[in-house]
């Protein structure tokens, strides 16, 4: 089942975060934002049992959790995707590094989010990200993308992109749809498509109709 087909009226969310204060804060914020917090967990094991019990639409998990404080959340997210493929997952990270991101996206990028933890402060944006992954989009933190885009390169076709094209590319990498890009950049969807066609030609990428394939292709290109 593709997450996007789910009725979005009352999204069911499970939160995994080992800091009690933050976990409770998130629960409150999300409940206030009209989401149904179906369960909370303090570690990966609890998370898996909560997901098995509540079968939420979206799982929100910190990467680092007890007992080893390394990548338990990430492993749990991969496990959840394996066992319940329709479940959307947002991983909260404190790293701008992309190693974990690619591990996460490697399977199916639909309904996957990789968001820096501090994003929770902007509640509107954060709930929007939850709704997007629940709708089957990919959400990649803008700061992670902008670091990738801004990397110095030599003799790269990226340098030949216009400013507009670069902006379009970054938004694609964040997992935005053409429609969202058009809205954000105040362009017509037609113009967005033209830009995308041009920059794909410049980068030598094959145009991909589906957004989720596009995200992976663009991110992989940027990471090289």
């Amino acid at each position, binding site marked *: 089942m593709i997450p996007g087909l789910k009725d979005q009226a009352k999204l069911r969310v499970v939160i995994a975060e080992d*800091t009690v204060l933050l976990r409770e804060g998130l629960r409150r914020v999300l409940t*206030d934002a009209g989401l149904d917090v179906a369960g909370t967990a303090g570690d990966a094991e609890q998370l898996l049992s909560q997901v098995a019990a509540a079968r939420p639409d979206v799982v929100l998990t910190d990467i680092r959790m007890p007992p080893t404080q390394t990548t338990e959340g990430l492993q749990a997210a991969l496990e959840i995707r394996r066992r319940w493929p329709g479940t959307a997952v947002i991983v909260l990270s404190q790293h701008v*590094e992309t190693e974990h991101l690619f591990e996460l996206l490697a399977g199916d990028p639909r309904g996957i989010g990789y968001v820096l933890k*501090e994003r929770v*402060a902007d*509640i509107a944006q954060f709930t929007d990200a939850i709704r997007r992954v629940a709708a089957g989009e990919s959400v990649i933190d803008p700061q992670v993308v902008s670091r990738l885009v801004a*990397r110095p390169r030599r003799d790269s076709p990226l340098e030949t992109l216009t400013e507009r094209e670069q902006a379009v590319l970054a938004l694609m990498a964040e997992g935005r749809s053409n429609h969202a890009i058009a809205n954000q950049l105040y362009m017509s969807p037609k113009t967005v498509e033209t830009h995308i066609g041009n920059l794909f030609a410049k980068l030598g990428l094959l145009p991909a109709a589906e957004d989720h394939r596009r995200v992976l292709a663009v991110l992989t290109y940027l990471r090289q």
Partner: protein
Amino acid sequence: MSRRLAVLTAGAIAAAGSLAWSGWPPHSDYLPILICYEVIGLSFLVAGIAAWARWPASRLGLLFTIAGYLYLVPYILVNLANPVAFTIGNLSQGIYTAAVAHLGLAWPAGRLRSRFECGVVIAEYVTAAGFSVAAIVFWNPAFSGCDASCPANVLLVGDGSRPAGNAINAIGGFVGLVLTGIVLTLIVRHWRSARGWSRRAMIPLIWLAGAVGAEQIVTGSALDLPLSSLISFGLAPLVMLAGPVLFVISTVRARTAGGALGAAIVDLEPGASPGRLREALARALGDSTLQLAFRRPDGTGYLDTAGQPVEVDRPDPGRVVTRVVGSERAVLVYDQGLELEPQLVRLTAAAASMALEHSRLQAEVQAQLEQVRASRARIVQAGDAERRRLERDLHDGAQQRLVTLSLALGMARDRAAADPELGSLIESASKEAREALTELRELARGIHPAVLTETGLAGAIQALVERSPVATTITAVPAGRLPAAIEATAYFVVSEALTNVAKHAMADSAEVTICQRPGRLVVEVSDDGAGGARPEGGSGLRGLADRVASVGGALRVDSPPGCGTRLKADLPCP
């Protein structure tokens, strides 16, 4: 020494005098033979002096000298044209063979080994003297073709009897032959039972024994072969000469043994194993059976360098034990014959002591170095662990709190929508919190990259490259996990190198290559910048070299001005 010189001088004067006295040339037909006898006799005297000088503790020198005089004097006396001298000369002509047998049996210590051998030697002297006396009574010089010019035989009874003399000579020859056989058998037994130094020391004796044996067989058996006179008067004296000459030569060579010892120690490379030291000492000492033994660590006996137990308190027969000076643990066990060369043994023991002390000091330094290396590695690892802990504390503590604070501020801002002034205050507080989080994240990453512990070298290097302000490519990096200390070292090498590239190199691009080779990890970072980086300058590179050395690796910086910089760390990696 002067006493020996006097003995030799007396012998030489006597020999020369005898030739002059007898009216030069006395019997011109026999002159070459006469000179030959003189040379043989003198050679025994010289060998006697050599033996005295080489082995002062041995009576070998005395025996050589006695044999030399017993050989020489009768010939001198015979030529003195005096009846008494002539008679004594003829009487004593064969006694030297007993002295030579004595010499052979007492070799090399100058002492006879058993009562039986004493008996054999006494029998040799008695036989030689007895049969000479018995024979001379019947010997008329005229029987030997001597005319009236010959001095008279003062012991002659009547006109003498040729058959009686011949019979006595034949019996005497036979008895002598039997005794010679016994002596030669004993010598061969000595030779066969001798090992190491003693066996080497017997080499000239074996020549002498062979020569005497041959001569005795020819003359004693009184064979009337056409060649017997040639052997008797030509070959036998020459072979006879070989014994003393060989002995003197071996003595000269032995004198260089001290030098050989020095060379052996000098040739011994530093830290040579005890086995090598034993070989060097055995070579220098000329005793292949030399053992270098060490007390076992538990104090229960000694083991030699081949790991065989050695009985030090009750050595095997023919073996002697000497403790190595300055070492409570080491002893030398060698052939008893070497007691004749106490100086050489002392030198050897001293050399062994020096070499062992050298090895001990070297092992000590090595052990200390090993300790220092291990403690350096531990310090670095402890530092790493501490940084990891610090990073984790920051993450679990301050960072989480700041995130929670941000969340609370976000909630507050949403609720303050009615009050724009409060809203903007909260917004700026929120911005501060965000920036604090970013700074804290960078700080934590600098202290220890979590991604290294979490995903290994590949992810961590990728992260470094992503944040490098200079275009950097990764050409190779091992995907699997490596020992934590090696991963951390490789990471810090790349991190420091890329920092330097960004700060100093003025480079357009850089390249990171990490290759796993058998037992090694080679980390290379190169750039196309200005070059001219000096490994000794700047604490960054020096610290990096220390860090690489802490895991037993080596750092090389290749940075010719104008040609970029190549930093290469070679790390041991199982």
